[in-house]
């Protein structure tokens, strides 16, 4: 491919997306919002991989890795959602702050 957008632009984008996702994971009260943050982080990492793959070649390794991450993210989202549903059934709330029964 010919060099279009410089690689750094992609990395910065990925970093920003990762940061937003991290914020979501650490600071949102709603469990689903936390999940969304996780998905964002995963996708940010994907962008990183692709950016490096485009720049430095290395065969199909980078792309294949990205496909893996997408698949795993999907599976993990399914599992995480079922856990949230179970918690909601138990605690009647999706607020992560209230699920502190392992406290002390």
């Amino acid at each position: 491919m010919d060099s279009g957008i410089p690689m750094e632009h992609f990395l910065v984008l990925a970093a920003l997306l990762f940061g937003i996702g991290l914020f979501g994971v650490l600071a949102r009260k709603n469990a689903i919002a936390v999940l969304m943050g996780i998905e964002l982080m995963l996708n940010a990492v994907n962008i990183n991989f692709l950016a490096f793959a485009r720049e430095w070649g290395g065969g199909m390794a980078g792309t294949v890795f990205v496909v893996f991450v997408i698949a795993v993210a999907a599976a993990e989202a399914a599992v995480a959602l079922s856990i949230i549903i179970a918690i909601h059934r138990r605690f009647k709330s999706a607020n992560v702050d209230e699920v502190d029964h392992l406290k002390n």
Partner: protein
Amino acid sequence: MIEWAWWIPVLPALSFAVILLLTRRSKALSAVISILTMAVCFAMSLGVLFELFQMAPENRKLVVPGGGIPWVEIKPFLITVGALIDPLSVNMLCVVTFISLLVQVYSLGYMRDDERFSTFFAYLSLFSASMLTLVVSPNYVQIFMAWELVGLSSYLLIGFWYFKDSAANACKKAFIVNRFADLLFLIGVITIGMTFQTFDFSLVDGVVKQGLANGSLSSGFVAGLALLLFSGAMGKSGQFPFHIWLPDAMEGPTPVSALIHAATMVTAGVYLIARTFTLFTADPLSMTVVAYTGAFTALFAATIALAQDDIKRVLAFSTLSQLGYMVLALGVGGYTAGMFHLTTHAFFKALLFLGAGSVIHSVHTNDIWEMGGLWPKMKATGWTFLIACLAISGIAPFAGFWSKDEIFVAVEQSRIPGHGLLLTAAVFTAFLTAFYMFRLFFVVFMGPRKKAAHGSTGGDSHGEPHESPLNMVLPLSILGFFSVVAGLVNAPGINAYSRFLYFGSEPEIGVFHFGLAGVSTLAAVAGIILAGAFYWKHLLSPAAWAEKHKGLYTLLKNKYYIDEIWAWLVENVLFKLATAFAWFDKRVVDGGMVDGAGWVTRRVGSMVRKTQTGQVQQYALVVFAMVAVLYFVLSFGF
């Protein structure tokens, strides 16, 4: 026979187990097992003695089985269990098994009506096993173990009638006083082991002799060790001030008093000194302490015996006094004399106690002032008791004369500072001994038959005192015989005993010292005559004398208040110290250290626990924060 000698202590132990576990309900069976066992042991002891005689003197020392069975092997210590066979231990084997056998036969009659008859024989067997183990011990560890076992047996036997408060107190007192004295003994044993890297008697003796010869070992140090061992001997053999348990031990049945507190257990201390004599003779200091302790105890106990009214108490103090003689003998280097007196004393003291038992059995009281006029009614007891009194007073040719005389000679010839004083004390004690023994004889057997305070004249259902049955009279007669002839084995000209049992490489054959013999006989005869004047012919009045010297009499009667002094010491010194240590243990060790460790852990835990909030987002925050820190550390390396 010598290879089987180790069975001698084992058989009575088996007898003990069998009686307690299997035959307790059958009085006859228990007695048979116990007595048969002891008869076999006695026969074996004689066999060993005979075989030892056949051996050349240099060879008369071996340990069976096969040098001892290795028991504890921790480099460099090898502690064995076994039986050391040499003239000293064989002497004790014969004495212990013989007296034990006679006492057990006597108990057939004396304890016949007791409910716990079988248990009594079991305990007697246990005692015999322990004592026999003690006298054949080849090392300090085995002797210490046997020592404590003997103490246990004594406890069980003194407190045989445990439902009596006095007996319960007496057996506790005996055990505790002995335990207390044995503390120093134990320290001595441990020090010996640590210093010489072995516990074996022969090896320790060898190392000590070498060390003293080439100067690497200080004689004062060895004397210190000897004195630590002597503490144990003082407890067991009733030397002042650890004598207090022996008079109280008379609470036990009379056969027990005869066996344990006259002939055998109390002689264990004397035996210990003889066995470890190499350590004692290293330095004059230990010898002097031993000699003076012995002489003092002999005199001290004899004075107390003058004022006692209980027949067994008189004999108890007499035993203390004679033990003092034995200890004195060893202290002045009279190894053979001391052991010879131990042997003859075993005969006539056991006889005296068994005779007393016979009297008590007949008149149902221990108080000599409730007795009297028993001679015509109890001929066998009377005659044998008389023989024993003559023997203990040292009248020739009875047994006691020869052994006491040898002690006097040993004292006279010794180089201990002040041995003249020791000799005077010893001779004066002989005078007192003759006096109080014949006081006992005249009051109990002579004079009119008294009516007891509670109105009966005692005796059996006929109301009359009578001679005891054959199983009690037979041992009396046998012991009577030996009290007459036993001394002759070492008469001048024969000297068989001195040639058999001696310390060092050469026997020392003493010359007969007519002067000393004369003086001691004079003292004894004077004592007898004076006793006769007071208590038989009533030319002098004991009551008037007691009135005139009231202070002295009260002092003697109350045993110089030594028991009260000990009680005060225990209450005010020992218990106070113990309370202080208990406080320290409770508040500092238990409270500060143990509880404290727990308390600190819990406090820290409750603080650290607060970081576990249960909120997953917080945990995630910590993780990512650390990642950031890690990044900085790795790139800029603080």
